[in-house]
Structures are given as structure tokens and as C-alpha cells.
């Protein structure tokens, strides 16, 4: 049997904001091609956890190893990891002073040192993939929320990341726009992209995840395959959380 390699390996990780402990003894392993969905009540540390993976938040103890690189105080390591790990935010984070095309082509040009023509080609390729290539020359403010989030996904993909992080990608969207964004993420999952996704969309979680992680109070309470997680939760807190959702 071929042992699957872990692309994310977090062990005994603790995160503090001053005296407040936001994450407690986190152990998390994600194998290549893994599709992890993290859920839990608000304030449970879900977003903090995935923001630690690309070091938008630093951790105080324990270790985080991403793609074979140990994330410590070394800025070069952190930059190297950020190039390989794409992230999609709740509020899109598109650059409002640049067109959609420029938003997508910027990082390939600045970070991957692609020529402008090449970067534009890459950008158009992924904008087509998320089906908004006709919006390429518009500014973010001229697009709907769903289109903006798809553009943000395309922007992350332009860096050809090995891992994608989604931080509540549909929470800021109008209900009727959610499905167009989820469709894009589902198609990424089908292509074998390794992803870690924080979401409240349980139907979507069931559909894409190969593992669901439930967090509360900064701790991982339970992790299981979707079927057993939804049908047969073990922990009381998980049961309570799921019963509130249904």
C-alpha cells in the first residue's frame, strides 16, 4: 500500500490573543487531495485555524508543517508557503482599484515573475473556468457578490496553488448567489484539489468533504467521514450543534 503524504501537518499547536487562548492543542493532518470541511459555532476558532495554515495568524507553540516546510519565524518560509497555498475570504478581498483581469494577473506577474501577456493568459484561463471571463475588464464594484467571489477564487487559482483554503466563502452572499460559488468549489474538489474549507453550508459539506472536523472553544472536538459525522455523531456538543442546524 502506498502511504499517502500529508501536505498539512499540524501538531500540538496553540494560539493566544494576549491571555485568551484561541486554539488549544490542535492536531490536524491533511493528506494530498484531502477535502476537509471545518464547522462549528461562531467563535470556535475555525477561521483562526485556517488562517494559521498560511500564517495570516501566527501561532505561539506547537508546529505547523505545510508542504514539507516548517512554518516558524522565518519570513522566507512563510512567503514560500503563501505562494503555494491559495486563500478565499468571506468578503472576497478583491482589489477595488484594479480590474478583474488585473486582480488575477497581478500575483503571477509580481510573485511568479510572469510576463504581462502570460499573466493575462493565465488570468483569462481561470476566469473562463469560473465563468466570468466576460467581466474581465470591469472593476470589482461593478460585479455581484457571487461574481466577485468567483473572481476571487480565480485570482487564487492563477497562482496554481497546491492547497486551497476557503474561509466561509459563501457567508457574505445573498442566498440566491451561493450556489454559483459552491459549484465552482465542487468542480475544484472533483479535480483533486487539496482543500480546507470553513463553512456553514452542511449540504455542501456532505457533498465535497472526505472528512469533517467539528470545533468548539478552540479545540477539535470530533473528526469523521461525512456519513458517520452526520448520521452518527459521537460527541454531545456535536450532536447539539447538528440538532440546531437541522
Amino acid at each position: 500500500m502506498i502511504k499517502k503524504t500529508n501536505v498539512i501537518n499540524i501538531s500540538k499547536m496553540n494560539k493566544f490573543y494576549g491571555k485568551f487562548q484561541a486554539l488549544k492543542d490542535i492536531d490536524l493532518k491533511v493528506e494530498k487531495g484531502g477535502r476537509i470541511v471545518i464547522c462549528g459555532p461562531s467563535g470556535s476558532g475555525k477561521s483562526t485555524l485556517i488562517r494559521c495554515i498560511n500564517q495570516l495568524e501566527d501561532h505561539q507553540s506547537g508546529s505547523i508543517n505545510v508542504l514539507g516546510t516548517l512554518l516558524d519565524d522565518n519570513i522566507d518560509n512563510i512567503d514560500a508557503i503563501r505562494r503555494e497555498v491559495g486563500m478565499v475570504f468571506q468578503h472576497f478581498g478583491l482589489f477595488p482599484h484594479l480590474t478583474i483581469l488585473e486582480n488575477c494577473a497581478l500575483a503571477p506577474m509580481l510573485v511568479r515573475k510572469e510576463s504581462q501577456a502570460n499573466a493575462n493568459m493565465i488570468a483569462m484561463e481561470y476566469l473562463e473556468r469560473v465563468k466570468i471571463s466576460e467581466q474581465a475588464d470591469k472593476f470589482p464594484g461593478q460585479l455581484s457578490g457571487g461574481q466577485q467571489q468567483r473572481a476571487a477564487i480565480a485570482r487564487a487559482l492563477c497562482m496554481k496553488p497546491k492547497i486551497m483554503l476557503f474561509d466561509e466563502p459563501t457567508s457574505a452572499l445573498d442566498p440566491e448567489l451561493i450556489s454559483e460559488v459552491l459549484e465552482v468549489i465542487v468542480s475544484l474538489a472533483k479535480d483533486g484539489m487539496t482543500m480546507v474549507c470553513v463553512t456553514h453550508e452542511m449540504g455542501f459539506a456532505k457533498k465535497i468533504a472526505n472528512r469533517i472536523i467539528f470545533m468548539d472553544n478552540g479545540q477539535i472536538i470530533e473528526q469523521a467521514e461525512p456519513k458517520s459525522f452526520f448520521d452518527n455523531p459521537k460527541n454531545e456538543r456535536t450532536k447539539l450543534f447538528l440538532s440546531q442546524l437541522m
Partner: protein
Amino acid sequence: MKNLSQSLSLIDLIRKKILVSKINTLVTLIFAALTLWILYLLVNWAFIDAVFGANNRSLCLDPTIETGACWSVIAARWRLILFGLYPFEEQWRAAIACFVIILVAGLSTLSYFLSAKNLSLLWLGGFSLFYTLMRGGIFGLTPVKELMWGGLPLTTFIFSMVIITGMPLAVLFALLRRSELPWISRSMGLVIDTIRSLPLLAILFTFAIVLPFVLPGWLIGDKLYRVIIGFTLFFACYQAEIIRGGIQSLPGSQEEAAKALGISYWHRMSRIVLPQAFQRAMPPTVNQFVITFKETTLVSIIGFFDLLSSANAAYGTALWSFAHIEVYVFVAAIFFVFVFTLSRYGAYLENRLNVTKH
């Protein structure tokens, strides 16, 4: 028909908005009359009863006729007002130099020059041309010491030097002030707060008069440049806080999104954060430009003949001392043209940058 309905709606508008009640109507009429009366007096003074022509000084002083403004003083002394102590026969050089600065300032507004490289090349060229023309000493131009520079060329030179060198300095100060390393941000904060808490006059005075006692000889340079350096520091500290305000008004998600893409600090600043910060800081920045332009008149205190002090000199002789109002009106008009152009350009920039929002 269309005209009629339009004029009807105008009357409607007046009726609804202005002539609402008896008191409202009365106040409107009183102020309308007052405005018209002041306007009548002004037009009378400035044009109808005014005396023109350089040789009509005696007409202005003739007690037997009622006269308005005596524009003869401008006709006779305009070269002193515009060029100060600059040698009379060489004033064509000062005129061209002044025109160069204004032209370069105008060119900087074109989108072609709105990049750091092009803009700095443009101004470097502009300033060298200005310096060559004003200072002379080469190409057969008679040398003219900085102390003899004056009037409008001096004012525009000081202003543009302060802005062009102060702006990059302000950006640097703002970024250092926001440094994550506390000892850098705190010491920058201390420098900014200290300089801002000093009156500009004191700073100019220190740089012009006190500094030569402390500095080694080779570092002293000309008084004009010391004054410009002091002025630039002062401007940079205020402008740094304006830029910092612009940066801090951005949602943190902008920098985070750029970080998550692996974009480096300098690229994050130059491509993501600063362009948006400048966009947001545009109104206070234009405000700071306007204030700085008017503050250039303070250099008169340390013996420079900027526009305002050469104007003082223009009526400061027994010959024209009665005509100070006309001289001040003339200078005010020049200042108005510059400041108004600045604020209109600011408004235009704001509009253009807002196209990206919606």
C-alpha cells in the same frame, strides 16, 4: 412650449424654495439688494472709475476727480512684483524659468507621467532647467545668486520643491510610523509629533539662521536650500499623517488578501495599499497642498523676496505708498488662480479615481 414649461418650473422652484413665507421673501430681497450694491461698488472701483496706464500716477492723486482703483501701480511695478530683486535685464530668464515649473506641474497631471520613474525624470529635468536659467553662470548667462531670486519664480520653485521631495519622504514616514517593530514606529511617531508641534516659522528660522552655526562648513549650502529642506520636513510630517490616515481607512482584508497571494511587502505597499490610500486621502492632500502654497509667503521673514514680499516692496516707496490695496488685490488674484487651479485639479482627480468605485 418646452421653454415655457422650463421657465414655469424655475418660477415654481423659486416660489417653493425661496419665497416660502413673508419673512423668507423679505430676507431674500434684502440680501439680494445688498449683494447687488456691493457688486456695483466693486465693479465701479475696479473698472469704471479705475485709472489704467503706467504714466497716470498723477491722475490717481488728483484731488479734483473722484477715482477708483489705481491700476497704474501694477502697470508701473508689475516686474518688481513678479520677479522681486532679480536683475531687471535678466528677468526674461526668470519668466521662462517660472513658466517651465508651471509647465512641468501641468505635465505631471497627464496620465503618462503618473509613474514614479517618469514623474521623477520630468521634475529632475524641470528643476535642472529652472536652476540653469535662474542661477546662470553657464551658456553665457550672467550668474545670479539665490539671494536675488524673487517673486513668482521663487514662490513656485519653493512650493514645487517642497511637494516633490516632501511627498516620497511623507510616504516613507507613514510606512515607518506603521512599522511592526515598536522601536521604529515609536521613534518615527516622536519625530513627526515633535516637528508638527513646532511652528513652521521657528523651523524655517532654525534652518536659515541657526543651522549654519552648528553644521560643518561644507554642509551649510545656500540659505535657500536649507529653508527648503526645513519646509520639506515640516510638509512631510503633516502629509505622512494624512497618508497614514488613508492607509488605516483601508479594510485590513486588502493587505491580507495580498499577503495570502504571496505578494512581498514592497509590492503590497506600492501596488495595493498606497494607491488606495492616496485615493482616499485625496481631499486632505489637496488641502495640504493649498496650505503649503500659501505658507511659502513665510520665507519673507528670513529675507527672501517671494511674491508677497516683492509686492510689499512694490508699493513700499513714497511714490506708490497710497496704492497698497491695488497691489494686494493683484497678488491675491495671482494666489487665487494658483490655489483655485489646485483645488479644481484635486476635484478632477477625485472624480477620475472614483470611476473605479460605483
